[in-house]
C-alpha cells in the first residue's frame, strides 16, 4: 500500500508534547510514532484525556501557549513541521493540511457570512474575489449543500449543526489538502446527521484522494471509516493495526476492554452485565515507570509495573505496546459472567402502571411563534420496567421528562398519574410521597451535582428530604447508599470535582435512590461518560432495578444504551410519538421508517456500514411543523401525497406495538440482525 519512495503524508517520530501547568511540565503525549500514507484513512481512538486532540494541534503547530513539542518530530510530506519558517508554515497551512474541529458552531466566525468565509480559503490560494466566490459555491455543492447561493448569504448561527460542519469541511477541502484532520467531527450531532456526515467524508475521501487523520472516541465511527487505527491511552499509542483485524482481535488489554464495554446488539440487562475496565485513566505523567495501563489491567504483573513495554509487532502491520499481547484473549471479565444469573427478569407487566401519561402536550411561546414541544403523548410504564425514550434533539424528550418532574407545566387537557394517583403539574403541589416516588438522574453529573457540596451533604440532604432521616440514621443511610453504588466512605467528604466522571454519576444515582423511588427518570445518564465508565453505570442501573423493582424512564439518543436497558421503547419525533412497543419488537421490526433510520445510523464496531436507509435534510422547525405525517419531509419510504396531507393512525397490535405510519406493517423495515440473541 505504501510506496517507500514517496514519503508518508504524515509521520510522527517519537513525538512528545507537554503542557506547562502551574510551573510543571506535564507530558500529554509520549513518544508517539505513526505514519499515514497517501490516500489512507487513519483512525486515532482514545477516551477523553488520552491526548488525541493534542496530536492534531501539534502537527499544525497550533498548540496552546503553554504547550510545546518536547521531543521527536512531526513530518508532513517529508518536511519537519517544527523546522518550517513562517512563510513555509503559512504555505503548509494554506495548501497541505486542513482540519475540521469538533464544534463547527465555534469554528466558524459568527460575524462573517458563510460565503465570505469559504471564499477566503480560495483567496489565499490566489483566486480573485469573484473567482473565489464561484469556487466557494462549487465547493459547497460538493459537500451536498443543496442551495449554496442562499447558504453563502447566511451567517453561521443561521445554519444547523450538520450544515455548519459541511461548511467547515468545504473550507477544509478548498485547498485540496494532502492531509485532512478530522477531530471528533460528529460529536454533538444527532445520530442521523452524524451518519450523513460520515457518509459524506467517506465519499469525499474518494473524490479528493486526501489522506485523513480521523480522531474520535467513537469506535463504531472509526470502524466504519478507517483503514488503520491507532489506540491512544494516557498519551501513548498502545496499539495500532488495520481496523478490522484490530477490532476483531485486539492485542492490547485496553483495546480489548474498550470493545467489551460497548453495549452491543445481543446484550441485555436481563442476560448479562456489561464488561468494564476497572479504575480510571491516570493523570498525565502520574505513572513514571512501567506500563501506563498496568494499574487497570487484569493481566498486569511485576514486569508490567516496572518495565515500560516496547512496541511489539504482533502481526501484519500490527503493533502493540504490551508485555502480554499474546494473552489478551484470556483477559478475564471484570464482572463475573456468573453474576448474570442473579439479574431478575423484567418487572410485572400487569397491574397498576407506575406512570401513566394521557394526551400530554406542551406548547412553548404563543402564536404565531408557538412551538409544540409535545403533542398528545400517551404512555404507560409498569413497575420495575424500563421505558426507553428515543429521538433526535428537539424531539421533546427532555420536555417530557421536565413535565413529568414538575419543572414545567404541561398544557391543560393532558394527564399524568403516578401509581394511579393524579400528579400535579407543579412540584409544590405534589405530595411528599409523590416527590419521593419520582426522581431523576441527569445527563451531566457536573451540572447535576452542586459543586460546593460534599458527597455526604449531596446524598444526606436527599435522604433528609426524601427519606425523612436525621442524624446517625441519616449517616448510616448515606453509607448504605454509597455502598450500593459501589462507592466507599472515603469519598464522603469529597467535592464533586475531586471525583471522576463515573464516580460523580454514581453519586447522582445514589442521590436519586435516597428516598427509595419507584420511578427514576434517567435523562441520557451515560452520554457524558467514556465508554468504559458508561458500562459500569449501565450495570449499576440494571442491578438497582433488579434489586428494588424501580421503573426507569430512560431517555437516550444511543440505541445501544436503550437496547441494553429497555423493556419498552417509545420513539419521539417533533414531540409526537411515532412508535411505541416492547423493546424487542421495536428494534427488530417491523418498525417505523424513522426508527429504521435511527437504527441504521448507529455505527457498529464490526465495521459494516449498515446504511440501508439514510435521512436527508434537517429536522423541521417546531414552529411550523410539516402537515400530514410529521416525518414526511425526511422519510425515505414516503408513499405518496397521503403522507403530506394526512396524519397516519396510531394503532397497536396485540403486543402493544403501535406504529404511526401509512405503510402496512408488512412493508415496514426489519432489522437484519435481531436485537435478541
Amino acid at each position: 500500500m505504501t510506496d517507500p519512495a514517496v514519503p508518508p503524508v504524515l509521520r510522527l517520530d517519537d513525538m512528545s508534547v507537554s503542557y506547562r501547568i502551574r510551573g510543571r511540565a506535564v507530558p500529554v503525549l509520549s513518544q508517539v510514532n505513526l505514519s499515514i500514507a497517501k490516500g489512507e484513512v487513519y483512525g486515532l481512538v482514545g477516551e477523553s484525556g488520552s491526548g488525541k486532540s493534542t496530536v492534531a494541534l501539534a502537527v499544525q503547530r497550533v498548540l496552546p501557549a503553554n504547550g510545546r513539542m518536547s521531543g521527536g518530530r512531526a513530518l508532513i510530506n517529508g518536511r519537519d513541521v517544527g523546522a518550517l519558517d513562517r512563510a513555509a508554515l503559512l504555505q503548509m497551512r494554506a495548501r497541505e493540511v486542513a482540519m475540521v474541529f469538533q464544534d463547527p458552531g465555534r469554528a466558524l466566525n459568527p460575524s462573517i457570512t458563510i460565503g465570505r468565509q469559504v471564499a477566503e480559503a480560495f483567496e489565499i490560494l490566489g483566486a480573485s474575489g469573484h473567482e473565489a466566490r464561484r469556487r466557494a459555491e462549487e465547493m459547497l455543492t460538493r459537500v451536498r449543500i443543496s442551495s449554496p447561493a442562499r447558504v453563502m448569504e447566511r451567517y453561521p448561527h443561521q445554519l444547523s449543526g450538520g450544515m455548519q460542519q459541511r461548511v467547515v469541511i468545504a473550507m477544509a477541502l478548498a485547498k485540496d489538502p494532502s492531509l485532512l484532520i478530522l477531530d471528533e467531527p460528529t460529536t454533538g450531532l444527532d445520530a442521523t446527521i452524524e451518519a450523513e456526515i460520515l457518509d459524506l467524508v467517506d465519499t469525499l475521501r474518494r473524490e479528493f484522494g486526501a489522506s485523513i487523520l480521523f480522531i474520535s472516541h467513537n469506535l463504531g465511527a472509526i470502524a466504519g471509516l478507517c483503514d488503520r487505527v491507532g489506540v491512544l491511552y494516557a498519551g501513548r499509542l498502545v496499539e495500532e493495526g488495520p481496523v478490522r483485524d484490530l477490532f476483531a482481535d485486539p492485542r492490547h488489554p485496553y483495546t480489548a476492554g474498550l470493545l467489551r464495554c460497548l453495549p452491543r446488539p445481543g446484550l441485555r440487562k436481563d442476560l448479562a452485565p456489561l464488561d468494564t475496565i476497572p479504575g480510571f485513566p491516570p493523570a498525565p505523567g502520574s505513572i513514571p515507570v512501567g506500563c501506563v495501563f498496568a494499574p487497570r489491567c487484569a493481566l498486569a504483573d511485576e514486569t508490567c509495573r516496572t518495565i515500560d513495554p516496547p512496541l511489539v509487532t504482533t502481526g501484519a502491520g500490527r503493533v502493540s505496546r504490551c508485555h502480554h499481547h499474546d494473552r489478551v484473549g484470556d483477559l478475564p471479565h471484570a464482572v463475573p459472567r456468573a453474576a448474570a444469573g442473579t439479574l431478575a427478569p423484567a418487572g410485572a407487566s400487569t397491574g397498576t402502571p407506575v406512570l401513566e401519561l394521557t394526551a400530554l402536550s406542551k406548547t412553548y411561546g404563543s402564536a404565531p411563534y408557538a412551538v409544540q414541544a409535545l403533542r398528545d403523548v400517551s404512555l404507560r410504564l409498569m413497575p420495575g420496567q424500563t421505558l426507553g425514550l428515543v429521538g433526535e434533539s428537539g424531539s421533546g424528550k427532555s420536555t417530557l421528562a421536565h413535565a413529568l418532574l414538575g419543572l414545567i407545566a404541561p398544557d391543560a387537557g393532558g394527564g399524568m398519574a403516578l401509581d394511579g394517583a393524579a400528579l400535579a403539574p407543579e412540584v409544590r403541589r405534589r405530595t411528599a410521597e409523590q416527590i419521593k416516588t419520582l426522581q431523576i438522574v441527569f445527563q451531566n453529573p457536573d451540572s447535576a451535582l452542586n459543586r460546593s457540596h460534599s458527597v455526604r451533604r449531596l446524598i444526606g440532604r436527599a435522604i433528609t428530604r426524601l427519606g425523612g432521616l436525621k442524624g446517625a440514621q441519616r449517616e448510616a443511610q448515606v453509607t448504605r447508599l454509597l455502598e450500593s453504588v459501589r462507592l466507599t466512605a472515603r469519598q464522603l467528604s469529597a467535592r464533586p470535582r475531586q471525583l471522576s466522571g463515573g464516580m460523580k454519576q454514581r453519586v447522582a444515582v445514589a442521590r436519586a435512590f435516597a428516598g427509595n423511588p419507584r420511578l427514576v427518570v434517567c435523562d441520557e445518564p451515560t452520554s457524558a461518560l467514556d465508554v468504559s465508565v458508561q458500562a459500569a453505570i449501565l450495570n449499576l442501573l440494571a442491578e438497582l432495578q433488579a434489586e428494588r423493582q424501580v421503573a426507569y424512564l430512560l431517555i437516550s439518543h444511543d440505541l445501544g444504551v436503550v437496547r441494553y436497558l429497555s423493556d419498552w421503547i417509545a420513539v419521539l419525533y417533533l414531540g409526537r410519538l411515532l412508535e411505541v412497543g416492547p423493546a424487542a419488537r421495536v428494534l427488530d421490526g417491523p418498525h417505523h421508517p424513522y426508527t429504521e433510520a435511527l437504527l441504521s445510523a448507529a455505527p457498529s464496531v464490526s465495521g459494516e456500514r449498515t446504511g440501508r436507509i439514510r435521512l436527508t435534510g434537517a429536522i423541521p422547525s417546531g414552529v411550523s411543523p410539516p402537515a400530514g405525517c410529521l416525518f414526511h419531509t425526511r422519510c425515505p419510504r414516503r408513499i405518496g401525497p397521503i403522507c403530506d396531507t394526512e396524519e397516519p393512525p396510531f394503532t397497536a397490535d396485540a403486543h402493544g406495538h403501535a406504529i404511526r405510519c401509512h405503510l402496512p406493517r408488512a412493508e415496514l423495515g426489519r432489522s437484519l440482525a435481531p436485537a435478541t440473541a
Partner: protein
Amino acid sequence: MSEALPLTEPAPGLAREARTRGVVGRLLRTPSFLIGITILLFWAVCAVFAPSFVPYDPYADDLLNTLQPPSAEHWFGTDQIGRDVFSRVLVGARAILTIAPLATLVGTVAGTAIGLITGYFGGWVDAIIGRLLEVMLSLPLIIVALLVLVALGPSTPTVVVVVGLVFAPLVARTVRAAVLTERHLDYVAAAAVRGESAPYIMSVEILPNITPPIIVEGTVRLGYAIFTIASLSFLGFGVQPPTPDWGLAIAENYGVLIGGFWWTVVFDTAATASLIVGVNLAAESLQRALAE
C-alpha cells in the same frame, strides 16, 4: 482543545485543602497581590492603631504655626490651622477604611439578595426589579449619591447606606448573571424535584457557587467605594470636619496649593491613590487566582 481542559483540573483524589491552598498559594506568589495587600494592610494598621502612635493629636490646632513646611518636627508639615499633616494622613485612613468597607458590605449584601431573587425567579419579578435597577443605573452613581445626600444631609451612616445602595444594582447585575448561569444547571432542577423551597435553593444551593464572582465584585466595589467616598468628601458630602480624612483635606487645602504649600495636599493625594491602587491590585490578583 477538549484535551487541554482536563489538564487544568486537578487530578481526581486531590483534597479540597490542596485547592484552597492553591488559590492562597498562587496569590502569595503574585507580586501584584503582595504589593496590593501590603499597602492595604499598612493602611488597615494605621486605621486601627495610628491614633496611638502618631506624634501629634491629629485634631490639635496650633494657630501660631500654620502652614509650616515639612521639618524634623512635623514630617509632613502643618495645615492651615497648624495641625500636623503626618498625623492626620495616618489617622485619615480610619474614616475611609471604616466607611468604604461598610458601604461595600451594604452594597454587596443588598445586591446579592436582589441578584439572587431576580435571577432565580425571572419572569415579572425580574422585569420589574430589573426596570427599577435600570432607572438607578441610568444616572451616574455620583449624581444619585449627591442628590440623596443633599436631601438627607451628610452623616457617616447616610454615606454608608447611600454609597452601598447605589452600588447594589451593579452587584445585583453581576450576581444575576451568575445566577442565570447556575439556574440552568441540573442541580437546581434536582433540588426542585426534591421539593426544596426557593429560599433554600437560592441560599444553600446557588449562593455557594456564585461566591467567587461576588468576592471579586466586592473587592472591585471596595475600590470604587473608596473612590466615591473620597470624591464625596472632596465635594463636602462625605466625611465631615474636623475628622481627618484625605478627600476632605484635599478639598480644604487645594486652594493653598498654588501658594507653594504642597504638603497640605500631596500626602493625602498619595495616600488616596495608594490605597485605591492597593485595593485594585489585590482585587485583580484575586480575580485571576479564582479564575485560574
